[in-house]
């Protein structure tokens, strides 16, 4: 098992490098650069050329990639063109916010999605199953920006149950840390629902189909024949096996949470990585785009590894050596 993990970790290195090369090429081939943002009607041509030079945009792309790679390996992600400060300094405060939101959304998806899937499966074609199926189809197909705006309209503007934007009211000083955390969680409820919506529906569909398959298998019939109660049959015998495919989904869900954060954070005005990434793309702030996308690529690779390991942990029949 250990050799397997080490081998997989080593495999990540060339794949990751390959991804960064492709990322760099895509950014390189995309038209425009950050210097377009630094235009003033009264600027002189030579001043504009100077700005491009300051950003290192005049080096050939080949050289710039290796400069970037060398610096990144030393932990220096470069200077943001927009903020004119180190990228690490800009991204560091964004990471905990995005992570918090992603974890909340993930928990929301699991806590709602899996039980709903079980209910659907055990009462196949009942009213509950049908309505949950309709709900999950809506959840999968409803664009999150639209869903987000509807929630804001109803719960933040009309009812005013939840805040409209941000992760806190900066003019409110919480009396203690717990009140501060609750204040922030209150701000994150709607974003959590929007970001977790797709996951909830997906987990529900997978749980349902997987459970249906397990329920029809021979050992469940045997368990029933032994005279076990339906509860024991479903929750002790069927669920364990039914969840195996779901567990593998967890790892793969990490990158899509990060991707979803781009839209969710933009709608709810949340200071996170997703919004920083989309702003950086619009600004052509290459160092930030590279940093965020590399992080995302790394998380995806890690997610795949975690999925495989969870698979082995949950299913004793699977062995890696």
């Amino acid at each position, binding site marked *: 098992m250990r050799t397997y993990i080490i081998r997989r970790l080593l495999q990540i290195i060339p794949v990751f490098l390959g991804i960064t090369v492709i990322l760099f090429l895509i950014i390189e081939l995309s038209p*425009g*650069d950050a*210097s377009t943002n*630094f235009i*003033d009607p*009264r*600027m002189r041509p030579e001043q504009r050329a100077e700005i491009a030079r300051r950003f290192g945009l005049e080096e050939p792309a080949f050289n710039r990639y290796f400069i970037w790679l060398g610096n990144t390996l030393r932990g220096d992600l470069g200077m943001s063109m927009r903020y004119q400060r180190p990228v690490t300094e800009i991204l560091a*405060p964004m990471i905990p916010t995005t992570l918090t939101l992603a974890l909340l959304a993930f928990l929301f998806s699991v806590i709602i999605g899996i039980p709903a899937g079980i209910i659907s499966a055990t009462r196949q074609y009942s009213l509950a199953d049908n309505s949950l199926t309709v709900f999950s189809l809506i959840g999968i197909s409803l664009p999150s920006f639209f869903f987000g705006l509807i929630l804001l309209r109803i719960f933040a503007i009309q009812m*005013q149950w939840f805040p*409209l934007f941000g992760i806190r009211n900066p003019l409110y000083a919480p009396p203690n840390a717990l009140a501060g955390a609750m204040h922030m969680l209150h701000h994150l409820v709607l974003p959590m629902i929007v970001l977790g919506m797709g996951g909830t529906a997906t987990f529900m569909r997978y749980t349902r189909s997987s459970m249906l398959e397990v329920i029809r298998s021979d050992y469940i019939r045997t368990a029933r024949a032994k005279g076990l109660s339906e509860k024991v049959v479903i929750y002790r015998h069927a669920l364990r096996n039914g969840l195996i495919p779901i567990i593998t989904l967890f790892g793969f869900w990490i990158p899509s949470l990060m991707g979803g954060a781009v839209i969710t954070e933009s709608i709810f005005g949340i200071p996170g990585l997703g919004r920083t990434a989309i702003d950086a793309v619009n600004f052509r702030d290459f160092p930030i785009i590279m940093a965020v996308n590399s992080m995302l690529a790394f998380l995806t690779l890690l997610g795949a590894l975690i999925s495989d390991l969870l698979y082995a942990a949950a299913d004793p029949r699977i062995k890696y050596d």
Partner: protein
Amino acid sequence: MTKRYNRIIAVAIAVIMSLVLVAACATEYETAAPTPAPTPAPATGNETQGTDGDETVATGPREINQNNILRFGTTSLDGLFNPTVSSNVYDSYVVSLIFEGLVTNNAGGEFIPNIADWELSSDNLTYTFTLHEGITFSDGTPMTASDVAFTYNVFAHPEYTGVRGYVVVDFEGHDEFKDGTADSISGINVIDERTISFTYAEGTASPANIANFGYGIMPEHYYAFDAWDDFAAKFDQPMGSGWFVFQEWRDKEFLLLHTNFDYWKPADIPLIDGVIFLDIPDESLAGAFMTDQVDVANPGASLDNQAAFATIDGIDVRVIEGNSYNFMQFNTLIPQLEDYRVRQALLYALDREAFVTAAYGALGSVGLSPISPVSWAFNPDGMNPYAFDLDKANELMEDAGWVMGGDGVRTKDGNRMAITWLVYPEAAWPGILSGLAADTWPQIGVDLTIEIMDFNTVGDRSLSASSNAERDFEMFTMGWSMAIDPDLTGGIFGLDEMALGDGGFNASGWRNEEYARKMEDAKQSFDQAKRTELYNEISAMYNEQVPTVVVALRSVMWPVADRVGNLDISTYVDWTYHINKVTLDH
């Protein structure tokens, strides 16, 4: 087995929960709690004489009332809160609240003393400024002429990264300093503690030069640096002499300023306790006004926004005639567009009235001239508005020798009248305008292709291409803004080498020696009547030749909550100028 499994799940849940808590705490309040007002520096004391002499005002710390802080809705701050490098407009507002420039301007666009009086030498080249008495930075240090010299030297620093190199580029000795042959700019001379002079190089005198002295003065003792990066590290920790003191900035969240209760002119200390910039997504701005979470903002004046804000109770939507416009530029070096009659025909065949109504409703108007209608140099007499007229357009095409072909497209000397228009989707108006042309231009025998690409690409192929060889367009449209002075050199209407050469902003390729000279004369003359006359001639010429056209002028809208009193905004005066008079119901 079951137990082991349960334990794994329990551990996993515990880990996830603790991560949530850790993450929640990490982004938690560190400094957002109310900060007591800064204690006054010993030098200023609690009772200070106003500079006008007879007025004595009690000052001293005042408890910050969170409800007495003006809430400004913004979309993004870049953290370049420095008068030499700020480039986005919201950063500039922050700078304007913290720093003070030597001069400012009034509602009529005239420059007036702010913290210094000035004299201009008889050759119009040397400006001598005398700082007002008693100016101190917010840490209590007095401002001297060397702080002013320090600030202006930053604009010429070899590693300067900002967009305002033009501020000092015409100073005597600028080039020598820039290329390292001189240790300082010879045109900047500190005369005494409170007096400093700036000398322009021979041949660069212009009434527009005074605008270069509006940038905020930085305290040298705080900003002095050896390496540029050390200076850059203070961009997000600004300190100046103005009405407000920087407290905290959280990227994509908020920026908090508290009132400078030790402001050097006590009579002018703001009545509000601070300003907070809140980062509110565009989609939620109207909602934020409805739910009383913001006091002032500047949303785009689109039809949707006009409708949305018109229905909100408890706010007043101010409409200010803007200084920004949309322009259209033709590549006059290609055979299809070299004849001015063709360009006129294209304008006659474009219903700009309909465009303004569709894109801006009441908040826009058809452009006539490169001079802003708000300017003293503007004169609409004799300007052709090119009112929509397809017959006239066809006639002009015929006059220019373009004959209708069998396929409905005109030709001349083997060239087809085929034009490609570069359109970007980031704003709605280029699509609306080119959409109108797509209906009407084929009726005058033009084969129009609309090519959609992102804003940066349109710029790279036209306006912001680094050389003329890299320009690759037939026509494009973009937005632009006008400065207070009507000077046109160097910009999209400039006919000088700086505008038309490599890296210049005028991509049209249209040249005219005579008018280039007139433009230069108009820039350099200190006689306003003569300038007005010259700008009238230049406008009339542009109105006829139309290589570059102001398509429409846009107004801007400023929703202001009813609890805000005395907020002064006009075309040349932004909301920060007189904010010390603003009151808030709380």
